[in-house]
């Protein structure tokens, strides 16, 4: 039988076309990947990461300093003229994939991607430069579950200062400075607040994923300064959440590909019934299916990163597609990793659970799959029933 499915055998629609983006890594991106991977291999070992669940987070700060300052990743998305590295969203995606591969407990996503993107429109060049240098770690005060589509500012300005509660904020525990979206009469302003200022409570949450521990933040009449005005604040936050969601997909790819690699390696050496497990066809086919998913997720994540890098008009579609797809793949890969390690995968000692917890928490980050699909339906003209 020789006929093959012809995907070009298509119908024309009025749909906005996809963009023709480069989905392979450039040489520069590969070099960046190599240097991040090398640093993480020596510094971010599973036992050190696991210790965080038992309250020993001695890994966190030195690792973040090494990445943020020594490798200069704090300001990766900040233009060179503003004190940053002038990298693109594609570069940040490379970094996130590597961080995902080792479930690194560092605030790169919250600081270097989300907070940096939100702060870019600010005229406060000094603050931007501090963020870019890594001298100050910054977190945007939005719930980790908030998305560009669902965001609304929970903090309001009063005479005595700004007040409000924002639950499950990622990066708040690590931040010296909080970037607070404040609801005002004519829009949303972004205010800067010192994390240790009077009236600020950052309450650590026992988190499903302690490697990205979230915090409930409460502000009560806190003194603050405006760093992005009401004309630009709302769009700055939404842009930050959109880029965050776009790049989270690359972290999810990192989680998924590492789970696949580790599972393949384990099954190649584990023997049962006189044969290595990797030779059992039912497992082979599941791993083949998982490989297909991971490679598909990689394409979706790279498309989203490329779209974010060039501010492509297709970015909103790219983000919803990448999030709807990659979240589930990371969870699936981590679940298969636990299952195919058998009893070992259920033990605290084996790192599989670190990936499972990160993957599941990532699935909830920047909006649920239902939210992504609903927005996508709107974007591509497929209205619900």
């Amino acid at each position: 039988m020789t006929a093959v499915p012809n995907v070009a055998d298509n119908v024309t629609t009025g749909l906005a076309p996809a963009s023709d983006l480069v989905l392979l890594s450039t040489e520069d991106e590969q070099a960046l990947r190599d240097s991040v991977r090398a640093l993480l291999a020596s510094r971010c070992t599973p036992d050190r990461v696991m210790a965080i669940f038992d309250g020993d987070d001695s890994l966190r700060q030195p690792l973040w300093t090494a990445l943020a300052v020594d490798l200069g990743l704090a300001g990766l998305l900040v233009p060179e003229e503003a004190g940053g590295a002038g990298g693109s969203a594609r570069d940040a995606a490379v970094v996130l994939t590597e961080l995902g591969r080792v479930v690194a407990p560092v605030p790169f996503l919250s600081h270097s991607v989300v907070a940096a993107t939100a702060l870019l429109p600010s005229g406060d060049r000094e603050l931007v430069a501090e963020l870019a240098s890594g001298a100050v770690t910054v977190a945007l005060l939005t719930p980790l579950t908030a998305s560009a589509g669902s965001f609304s500012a929970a903090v309001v300005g009063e005479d005595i200062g700004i007040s409000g509660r924002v639950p499950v904020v990622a990066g708040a525990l690590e931040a010296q400075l909080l970037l607070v979206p404040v609801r005002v009469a004519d829009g949303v302003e972004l205010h800067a607040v010192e994390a240790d200022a009077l009236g600020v409570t950052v309450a650590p949450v026992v988190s499903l994923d302690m490697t990205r521990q979230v915090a409930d933040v409460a502000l009560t009449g806190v003194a603050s300064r405006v760093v992005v005005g009401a004309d630009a604040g709302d769009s700055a936050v939404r842009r930050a959440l959109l880029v965050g969601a776009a790049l989270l997909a690359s972290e999810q790819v990192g989680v998924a590909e590492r789970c696949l690699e580790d599972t393949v390696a384990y099954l190649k050496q584990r023997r049962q019934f006189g044969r290595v497990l990797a030779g059992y066809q039912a497992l082979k086919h599941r791993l083949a299916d998982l490989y297909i998913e991971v490679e598909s997720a990689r394409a979706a994540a790279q498309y989203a990163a490329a779209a974010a890098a060039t501010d492509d008009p297709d970015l909103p579609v790219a983000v919803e597609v990448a999030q709807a797809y990659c979240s589930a793949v990371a969870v699936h890969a981590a679940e298969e990793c636990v299952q195919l390690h058998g009893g070992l995968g259920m033990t605290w000692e084996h790192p599989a659970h670190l990936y499972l917890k990160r993957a599941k928490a990532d699935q909830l980050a920047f909006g649920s799959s239902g939210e992504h699909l609903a927005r996508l339906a709107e974007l591509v003209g497929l209205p619900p029933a």
Partner: protein
Amino acid sequence: MSDETQHRRDLERRVSVLLADHPPGSTDRLDFLRAQFDAGLAWVHFPQGLGGLGLAREHQAYVDALLQAAGAPDNDPWRIGIGLGMAAPTILAFGTEEQHQRFLRPLWTGEEVWCQLFSEPGAGSDLAALATRAFPDGDEWVVTGQKVWTSSAHLARFAILVARTDPTVPKHAGLTYFVCDMSDPGVEVRPLRQITGEAEFNEVFLSDVRIPDSYRIGAVGQGWKVANATLNNERVAIGGGAPREGGMIGVVADAWRNHPERRTPELHARLMSLWVEAEVARMTGQRLRQKLAVGAPGPEGAAMKVTFARIAQELSGLELELLGEDGLRFQDWTMTRPERVQFTGRDAGYRYLRAKGNSIEGGTSEILRNIVAERVLGLPAEARTDKDVPWKDLER
């Protein structure tokens, strides 16, 4: 009068006598349980004199209902599930009369808790590859090795144990089944922490543990056969009659009902699909139980377990998505040693993580699919190279 009615009348009479002689309100719990055992009302399908009356298994439910209605204590079956579900039927089937008398009564009353020493780090699904050695020494055996996934080991007085007594024959042929006294000084129990943070199971290290030959269950070299009887009992125990929305589906359905603000059409579609699957699984379990009541357990129990594990995992995953913000929270990572498992207890994150074990413990879903394929559908067994080779010569 039908047999059924006659049995009921007889059981009602016996229960009345038990209750009259040992009024639950004024009788010590353990005294009552011992009396219940001696009255043959512990497990009516066991023989007379061993806590039963030689009746069909399903009559026990009627007895339990009568006793419960009268406010009688129970033997806390979830605390002593391994004794009841695995050790007892095996001892009954393969043990000597002396062993029956020694072990069954305190097992059933819960005075002596049991655990199971089967799995090893190197022998999970392939249990027959186990490496724990038992050497004969006079009237005793001396046992050395390492076991894992032992629930209740730190509470247990006895264990059922499989050990290798002959490494020079193929792996299935060299095993023997024992009762191991957990108070032996050579037994060391260490908690085995799981991905939930708690240690529901243990690792057990055996160093020159001495077991009298009178504690051997079945013949030397027959351990594989005896262990399989135990494991079959384990699988049959799964999927007991539950009401509609029993188990994980009830938890998630309630979460849906209690959180209107978190509903999305996509989650609803998935929830309803899983509701249907859970309900169909319930019906399938019900049908299987009706079948078991009129015949022997077959490998269909394996199929049920695959289904229950999958549904529990999908549901608990969906629950976290439904909870959104709160799905990011976890109750507590502190290491604890719970006395019993609550699959649907604690918080949603715990349920999600714990459910991952459902497709591993008690036979992985992969092994169970093999069993269904080979024993139900008659498909060829997997190629084996390890069946006829002396255990000591196997590649590891």
